[in-house]
């Protein structure tokens, strides 16, 4: 009998985490990050971790917690500018960093999960990103070869899930989570609402349960907002971006 449901994040990581492993962590900034599993990684204390994640949290939240606890060896990211501790560790040579263009990072993860070894993209041609990588002409334009990415463990956050591991994300908290769910040798998902099979509309599922090995019901979500930006009541409906 298949059972994917675990009692909590700590037990869901049992036998899965070890020093030196490569972990994909979903989220964009602090939006859609697996808060419970990050806390459990902190408790597990595993070290020399490589994280594939768009960002590295902030000083005291998200992956920044693991950074502060000395558990991170390397980051593969597109933007790490919100974290002062990151800057200090990097400048002291205590942290490795591989920067990828955000779209290239997303596609590398998608490719890795879909069994695609590499792909050609125009992004980064003529920049440091393309240095040392093969290029090829298509229709008179130069493209650079990027490789797919997989990880020992993918940790993702969804809004709702069922006991089969089917996942539905909410609004912009989706971001990198769906691709990462496909690219982990083991994928552990946490959700805000866990229902029995049959409790989700099959037509609305974003990540089919096949990709999810373990699922937990998360709790105590802080969902910190990096930049609270509001308009006063009665203000004109100025566009936000």
């Amino acid at each position, binding site marked *: 009998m298949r059972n994917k449901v675990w009692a909590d994040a700590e037990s869901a990581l049992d036998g899965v985490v070890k020093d030196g492993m490569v972990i994909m962590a979903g989220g*964009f900034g602090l939006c859609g990050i697996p808060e419970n599993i990050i806390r459990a990684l902190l408790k597990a204390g595993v070290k020399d971790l490589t994280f594939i994640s768009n960002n590295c949290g902030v000083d005291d939240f998200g992956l920044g917690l693991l950074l502060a606890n000395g558990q991170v060896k390397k980051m593969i990211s597109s933007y790490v500018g919100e974290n002062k501790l990151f800057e200090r560790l990097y400048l002291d040579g205590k942290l490795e960093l591989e*920067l990828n263009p*955000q*779209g290239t990072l997303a596609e590398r993860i998608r490719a890795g999960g879909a069994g695609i070894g590499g792909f050609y993209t125009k*992004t*980064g041609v003529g920049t440091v990103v393309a240095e040392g990588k093969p290029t090829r002409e298509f229709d008179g334009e130069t493209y650079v070869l990027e490789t797919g990415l997989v990880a020992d463990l993918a940790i993702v956050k969804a809004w709702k899930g069922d006991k089969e591991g089917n996942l539905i994300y909410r609004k912009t908290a989706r971001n990198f989570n769906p691709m990462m769910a496909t690219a982990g040798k083991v994928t552990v998902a946490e959700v805000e609402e866990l229902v029995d099979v049959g409790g989700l509309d099959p037509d609305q599922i974003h990540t089919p349960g096949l990709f999810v090995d373990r699922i937990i019901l998360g709790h105590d979500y802080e969902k910190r*907002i990096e930049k609270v930006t509001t308009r006063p009541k009665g203000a004109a409906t100025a566009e936000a*971006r």
Partner: protein
Amino acid sequence: MAWTREQMAERAARQIEDGFYVNLGIGIPTLVANAVPEGMTVSFQSENGMLGIGPFPYEGEEDPDLINAGKQTITEIDSTSYFSSADAFGMIRGGHMDLSILGSMQVSETGDIANWTVPGKMVKGMGGAMDLVAGAKRVIVIMEHTEKSGAPKLLSKCTLPLTGTKVVDMVITDLGVFAFEKRGGPLKLVELAPGVTLEDITAKTEAKFDVAL
């Protein structure tokens, strides 16, 4: 008199056509959303997975699951759709975005752009900038004409690490508007801000340009 940030944004908004799908970078480009002429249907994309961006929320109505690529809280509108980062960059890389408007530190006379890092300073990362300049149908840069030191930012060749090569279509500065006839050049001065003379702008520009006022 040079253009203000708002006036530069208004000038950029005049390049937007009815029906356009547009990605705006952080900084001055953000102001372009407020300057779109009435009556136009324009959709703004945020590369973290949203098309159709609404206004900032009212106080107390912020949703932590709903942010733009600048990590600010926003709202949705009737036409909004959500998708993954891979789909967001498929839109961008696949040439489905009509326009990308971004800030920059340097632009060259061949349309190279450098806007993501300064050597010796902390590396923050390029985020989505390299994908946007490589993939959008049109790329417009809004930037101050010179650095605070007075050093030109429109150069014969960028000295900072590049974000993309031969990708810029138009540069709007506080002093005027430059357009590339086609990708890669040649560069043309097409408009001066009120009170700015050709001599002024020439003295503050290192890039070679034709005058087509």
